[in-house]
């Protein structure tokens, strides 16, 4: 036997040994003994409060069963989507995946997410915006929701004789414009309102498309999801774009803001348009003087952005994992956990029964954020439920940054439509 033959035989033996080692464990990592492992990914690394609740749910669930063991892996939010894309490319997705609501249709269309197996009765008590549906199936469910609000101060509005709006009677467009003008003319602030234009994330779509919708426009034709033409460049959308640009041109709003949105807390602006997650910081600064207000009605009713992070199952789940993963999802949907999430984040609990269990003083009966639950139900409009959403959002964000910088509104809208339609046609989402 020459050296070459010996080498080949040795290699074959090594591969055989390796092959036998591989076969001792299944694709889901179960070696045939003990509980079946189920990997779960979260986007909450670095967020102490959220991690605490997630850990508790997992610990409680694992203690409740011998059949399955949920294993957590945490990712920082900013890095999360990129990691999921990489894992999808390499077929390394976990069984249970955390996903931002509007992205869900895209991940489902890609085949990364699969229908969860949750039934209508499982989610009957949940806010509609916390349940992720695609092609008439329930893919994901969330423990909380976030919504857009306007923060201001009672002392400022009352001092300038501006009516404090309510969910029942929000500001009209002219009332809102008048309020901004009155604040600006008072000379007490650098600007009347901070819209948060420096945010480079999905904020533009999440926060400004509800305003666009309140004007009567929209991002895409929601009947077919086949085109943005005639919708995003409609006369109503153009009216919004012109109004929005004027906010900055006239000095009512700053063209840039600090990353922490400190202008409002430093009393340099009177109104801050933000998500309800800003409540904790603003309340710490102003206490009971802080007002949390619904957005104005620009003609087509007030609209707020809704839909936040949710959990669903991926194609990577094996059959036996799927059963356990679904069991875990149902376990985690208990009111006590939903209430804990709300307590640590100040976000809207997904069920009204959980709201009653909160102890933080936000969402209970008579508490300052209680109205957000009915408001998000009444005014909430989920972002377009289409796999095209990531591109729609990216285009909208980029083009509306140009709008804020002074580009012609009509040109901005037409260019947005061209880019969105080009993507829809190229990707053939609807076929």
């Amino acid at each position, binding site marked *: 036997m020459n050296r070459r033959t010996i080498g080949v035989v040795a290699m074959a033996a090594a*591969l055989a*040994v*390796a*092959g036998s*080692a*591989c076969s001792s464990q299944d694709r889901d990592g179960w070696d045939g003994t003990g509980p079946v492992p189920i990997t779960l*990914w979260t986007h*909450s*690394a*670095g*967020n*102490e*409060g*959220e991690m605490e609740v997630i850990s508790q749910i997992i610990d409680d669930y694992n203690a409740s069963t011998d059949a399955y063991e949920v294993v957590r*892996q*945490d*990712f*920082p*939010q*900013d*890095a999360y989507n*990129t*990691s999921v*894309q*990489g*894992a999808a*490319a*390499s*077929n*390394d997705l*976990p069984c249970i995946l955390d996903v931002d609501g509007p992205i869900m249709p895209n991940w489902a269309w890609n085949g990364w997410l699969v229908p969860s197996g949750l039934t209508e009765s499982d989610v009957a008590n949940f806010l509609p915006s916390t349940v992720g549906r695609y092609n008439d199936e329930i893919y994901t469910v969330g423990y909380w929701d976030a919504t857009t609000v306007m923060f201001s101060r009672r002392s400022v509005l009352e001092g300038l004789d501006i009516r404090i709006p309510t969910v029942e009677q929000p500001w009209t467009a002219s009332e809102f414009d008048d309020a901004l003008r009155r604040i600006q003319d008072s000379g007490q602030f650098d600007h009347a309102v901070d819209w948060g234009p420096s945010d480079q994330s999905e904020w533009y779509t999440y926060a400004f498309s509800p305003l666009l919708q309140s004007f009567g426009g929209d991002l895409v034709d929601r009947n077919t999801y086949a085109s943005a033409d005639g919708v995003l460049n409609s006369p109503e959308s153009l009216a919004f774009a012109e109004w929005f640009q004027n906010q900055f041109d006239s000095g009512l709003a700053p063209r840039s803001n600090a*990353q*922490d949105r*400190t202008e409002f807390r430093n009393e340099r602006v009177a109104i801050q348009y933000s998500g309800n*997650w800003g409540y*904790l*910081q603003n309340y*710490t600064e102003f206490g009971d003087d802080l007002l949390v207000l619904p957005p104005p009605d620009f003609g087509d009713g007030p609209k707020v952005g809704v839909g936040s992070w949710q959990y669903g199952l991926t194609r990577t789940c094996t059959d036996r994992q799927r059963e356990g993963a679904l069991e875990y999802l149902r376990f985690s949907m208990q009111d006590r956990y939903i209430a804990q999430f709300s307590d640590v*984040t*100040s*976000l809207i609990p997904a069920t009204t029964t959980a709201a009653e269990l909160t102890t933080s003083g936000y969402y209970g009966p008579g508490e300052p954020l209680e109205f957000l639950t009915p408001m998000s139900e009444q005014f909430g409009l989920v972002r377009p439920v289409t796999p095209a959403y990531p591109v729609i959002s990216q285009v909208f964000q980029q083009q509306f940054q140009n709008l804020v910088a002074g580009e012609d509104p009509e040109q901005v809208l037409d260019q947005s439509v061209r880019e969105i339609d080009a993507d829809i046609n190229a990707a053939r989402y609807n076929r």
Partner: protein
Amino acid sequence: MSSNAPTPATTAAAAAKPPTRPLRSSGTDKGNPWTYIPLVLLAVTFVLPLLFMISSSFKPRDQILADLTSWRAFLPVGDLSLDNYAGVFDRVPVGQFFWVSTVVTVSIVVLGLIVNSMAGFALARLNFRGRGVLLGIIIATLIVPFETFAIPMVYLVSNLPRVVLHSDGFALRMGWANSYEVLIIPFIANAFSIFLFTQYYRSIPKELDEAARVDGAGWFRIYRSVISPLAGPAFATSAILTFLPQWNSYLWPLLVIQQENMRPVQVGMRYFFASATAEGTPWGQIMAYTSLITIPVILVFLMFQRAFISSIASSGVKG
């Protein structure tokens, strides 16, 4: 051969003068304030952000924000403490991130110096057909952004076999995700380093090779004992220019690493930007963390700066 007999390598090296050119003479510019004023201004411009980062790392968040409008932002004054550093260690596994980044970066630098210098030597010294075309192709890859082939690379590495060691033997697994291999191996060969070494080796007289060959040295011996010892500045420059992007590596680890214990330092930075906390973005901790992860970069530059400048001056290559 006696113990003190000259080897081919030492003979050849002794015949050579280092190819480095003298740096610009200080001469008459010395003491001329007009030379120094712009240099000092430039230096201050680069140092100020570092001062801000280090000073802020000792201040509470509110003081950082309050100091932003004055020179106090750059000075370690006010309510100073190590709280931010303690907070960093509470929030993220800094030691683990550092370990991963150090192992990965050092491995890439060391292996890269070997592989790329050998490639550069071959392109500069060996006569083979298509040498120019090959160098052209290597240089052409420099203009392709990493982002354009990152996902295809994920596909590629996810279909490669990997030997995994266990306490009871080893196994063959498919896919390189969550491994040191996936962080190190794709980045060992580096087009810019190959180009740098090629250029530098070309500046070394070929007579050295001929002298060494007369003494009986083979190509590898010439590379190892004759030419490489004269290419210190190129090695230093390559080390610095490889170290920086690898230490700052972000996108690739995001795509191929899912386990926290395999994440490098730059991914760790994102842990500080979690939303919905009453305290807001922890700027003090961010400054403490960036100070910690900047220290190795500064140390590496200080270690190699003299050779770095020498290499740039002699090869005409700028990073």
